[in-house]
C-alpha cells in the first residue's frame, strides 16, 4: 500500500532524474564498472590468455609477485618521472598560453587552431612523425647543432636513458598543449568582464589582475585540467610503445601501461596484467580524490 502512495512533485522530479540517468549508468556499468570487476576477479586467478584450462584461484599471490618484482617498481618509477615531467609543465605552460591568447585582440582563433592541431592526430602517427625528427640524422639534431653553433653532435634523443625520457615527455607535451590551453581559454571566458573592469577602474595592473582575479576565479578549471592532465600522463602508452619498437631502450620508458600490455599480450599472463591494472586504477583514484578534496575547500562563485 505504501508503494502506491501518491508521490510529491519533488519525488516525481527525482524519479524522472533517475529515468534520464539510467542509460548512462547502464553504459557505465557495462563498459567501465564491469571491466574493473572483471579485472579484479581475473587478478585473483592464474589465468593465461590462450589457455583452455580452467584457471585456478590463487588469492593475493599475483599481488605479492607483482609488488616484489623489480620490473614493476621500475615501471612505477618510469611512470612517476613521466607524469611529473609532463603534467606540471602542461598545467603551467597551458595556463600561461591561455592567458596570452585570451588577452590578444587579433589572431586569437588562428593561434588556438595551430595549438590544437596536434591533438587531432592519433598518438601512433605522432610518435612516428617524432621518431623521424629524433632519428640521429633527423631534423632535431640538425636544429640543435645549428642553434648551438656546433656540428655533428648526436643528442641521442632515442638512446640515452635521460634523453629518451625527455623525448617521450616532449612528444606528449606537444600533443596535449593545445587541448589543455583551449580548456583554460574556455574557463577564462567564463570570468565576467565586469570583474576586470572594476579592477581596472581601481587601478589594478595586468600582473595584479592575473594573480588576484584570473588565477583565483579559474580555480575550478585549473583543478579539472590538472586532474585530466595527470590521468592522461599516468595512462600514457603509444609514444613509449612506438619508441621501443623503433629501437629505444625499454627500461627508462617502461611505463606501467606498457608493462601491462607486454605482460598480457606478449607473456600472455593476463592475471598479472590485471593486478597492475588494479594498482594503476587505485593510484589514479587516490590522486584524483586528493585533488578533488583540496579543491573543494575554496569553491568559486561569481
Amino acid at each position, binding site marked *: 500500500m505504501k508503494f502506491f502512495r501518491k508521490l510529491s512533485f519533488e519525488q516525481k522530479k527525482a524519479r524522472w532524474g533517475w529515468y534520464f540517468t539510467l542509460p548512462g549508468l547502464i553504459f557505465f556499468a557495462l563498459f567501465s564498472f564491469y571491466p574493473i570487476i572483471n579485472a579484479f576477479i*581475473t587478478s585473483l*586467478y592464474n589465468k593465461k590468455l*590462450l589457455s*583452455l584450462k580452467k584457471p585456478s584461484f590463487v588469492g593475493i599471490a599475483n599481488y605479492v609477485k607483482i609488488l616484489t618484482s623489480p620490473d614493476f617498481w621500475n615501471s612505477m618509477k618510469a611512470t612517476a618521472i613521466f607524469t611529473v615531467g609532463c603534467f606540471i609543465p602542461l598545467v603551467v605552460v597551458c595556463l600561461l598560453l591561455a592567458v596570452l591568447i585570451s588577452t590578444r585582440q587579433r589572431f586569437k582563433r588562428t593561434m588556438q587552431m595551430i595549438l590544437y592541431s596536434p591533438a587531432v592526430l592519433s598518438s601512433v602517427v605522432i610518435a612516428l612523425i617524432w621518431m623521424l625528427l629524433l632519428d*640521429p*640524422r633527423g631534423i632535431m639534431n640538425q636544429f640543435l647543432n645549428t642553434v648551438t653553433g*656546433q656540428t655533428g653532435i648526436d643528442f641521442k634523443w632515442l*638512446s640515452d636513458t635521460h634523453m629518451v625520457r625527455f623525448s617521450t615527455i616532449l612528444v606528449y607535451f606537444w600533443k596535449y598543449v593545445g587541448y589543455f590551453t583551449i580548456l583554460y581559454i574556455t574557463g577564462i571566458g567564463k570570468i565576467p568582464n565586469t570583474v576586470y573592469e572594476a579592477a581596472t577602474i581601481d587601478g589594478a595592473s595586468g600582473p595584479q589582475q592575473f594573480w588576484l582575479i584570473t588565477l583565483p576565479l579559474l580555480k575550478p578549471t585549473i583543478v579539472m585540467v590538472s586532474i585530466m592532465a595527470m590521468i592522461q600522463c599516468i595512462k600514457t602508452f603509444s609514444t613509449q610503445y612506438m619508441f621501443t619498437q623503433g629501437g629505444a*631502450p625499454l*627500461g627508462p620508458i617502461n611505463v606501467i601501461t606498457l608493462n601491462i600490455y607486454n605482460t598480457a599480450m606478449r607473456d600472455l599472463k593476463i592475471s598479472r596484467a590485471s593486478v597492475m591494472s588494479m594498482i594503476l586504477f587505485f593510484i589514479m583514484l587516490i590522486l584524483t580524490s586528493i585533488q578533488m578534496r583540496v579543491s573543494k575547500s575554496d569553491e568559486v562563485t561569481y
Partner: protein
Amino acid sequence: MKKTVCGMLAAISVALAFLSFTGCTPKADENQHIDLTIWTHEDKNRTELEQEFIKEFEEANPNISVNYVTYPSGKIKDILVAGFAANEGPDIFNIEINDAYPFVTNGRVAPVDAKAAGYKSQKALVGAYMDKMLDPVTLDGKVYGLPLELTNWCVYLNKKIFTDAGLDPEKDAPRTWEDVMAVSEKVAIHDGEIITRRGFDFRYPYYLISWMPMVEQLGGKLVSDDGKTAIVNDDAWLKALTYMRDFGPTGKNLGSPTYTAARKVFDNNQNEIAMSLSGLYQEQRMASANPDFFNSSDWMVIPYPQWKNATKVEPCHYYGHYYMVNAQKSDASKKASWKLLGFMLSHSEEYLKKVAIVQPTKALFESDTFKNMPYSDVFKADLEKGSIVYYAENSPKIDSLLKTAVESVMLTGTDPATALAELKKNVQDVLDEE
C-alpha cells in the same frame, strides 16, 4: 531508490564478470555451406597471389566461401591473441613460429589433416618437406601447421660502396665478425658523432634470430640441454656483448638500433649502408623499390659471418611462418581449411617467383625457379647448416630480455658483465616459473 539502482547495477556487473570468466566454448557449426576466415599479415604481392588461389579454389568448391583478411605484421599477434582469448579466432591464421608456439601448446590449433591437404598420409606430408622444417610444429608425433615461409638471413653487400671505400668486394667481403668490424670501420663515414654511411648494421630487435648465433658459435647457449639453467658459457656471452658495445654508439659508433633499419636503406642504394642482413625475400622488395639496383651487378649476398675462433659453425637461425587451423572450429570447417591450405601451398614455385618466399619443400629446392634466383645457393647452404630459432612459450619474453641486455651495453653504457648478470638472473626467473 538510489541505493537499489546502484546495488542492481553492481550485481549485474559482478554476475557478468563471473559468467564471462567461466565462459564456454562455442559449439561447432555443421552447416552444409562452409564459410572460412583467414587472418594473415599484410604483404601486397602475397595477398594478390593468394586471392587468385582462393578464387580458383572457390570455383572448384562452390560450397566453401573464403573471407581473406590482412592485418599489419606488427599488429596481427595482438589481434590473434585477443580473438582466441574470446574464443572468436579465425579458421586459418599465420604468425611467426615464436609467437605461434603457445597456440600449439595450449591446444588452440588442430593437427594437419594430411588427406584433406592432398597427401596420401602424414608420412607422405612430412616426406615432402626438407628435413627438420616441420619440427617446430610437431608435438607428440602430430604436425600442427604447414610452412607459409621459412626464412634465413645472409648478408647483402653493396659492391659499389666497397669499391668507393678502397676495398675489393670479392676479396674483402667479411667472413668473420672481426672482419665485419674492420670493414665497417673502413666504410663508415661520420659527421661528428652522427653516422652518415654505415658499413654494416644488425637486424634490430630480432636478437634470438640474428644475434644468438654469434653466442652459439663461441659455445654459448641460451638454455642448458636439460632446460633448467639459463645462460651457458659466460665467456661466449661476454665476448658477444662486448662486441656489441664496441660496435655501438658508446664504442666505435658503427651502428645503432635508433638508425633507420639497415635493410630499408640498403635497397635505396643511396650510399648509406654497405651491408645488411636479410632473407631471400629481400630480392623481391629490392626489385620493387629499386629495379635498377636489383638488375645491376652492384650487389651480392655472402654467408652469415662466423667468429675467427668459433667452436661451432652456426649460421643465422631460420624462422618461419606456419599456416595453422583453429581447433575450436567444426570438423567440416577444419577439413575445408586444410583442403584450402593444401591447395594454396601446392603452388610453392609461384610463391617464390612472385613473392620471393621460400616454402621448404624438397620439390621447390630442386626446381629451376629456386636455383635461378640470384644467390639462392648462398641461402640454401646456410639453411642446411643452420638451426631453427629458439621457440617456446616464453620465447617472446626471452627475446625482450636479450633486447634489454644488448641495447643496454650498446646505448646506455652498461658494462657487459653487469648486463650479463642481469640477463642471467632474469632468464633464470623465466625458466623457474615454467
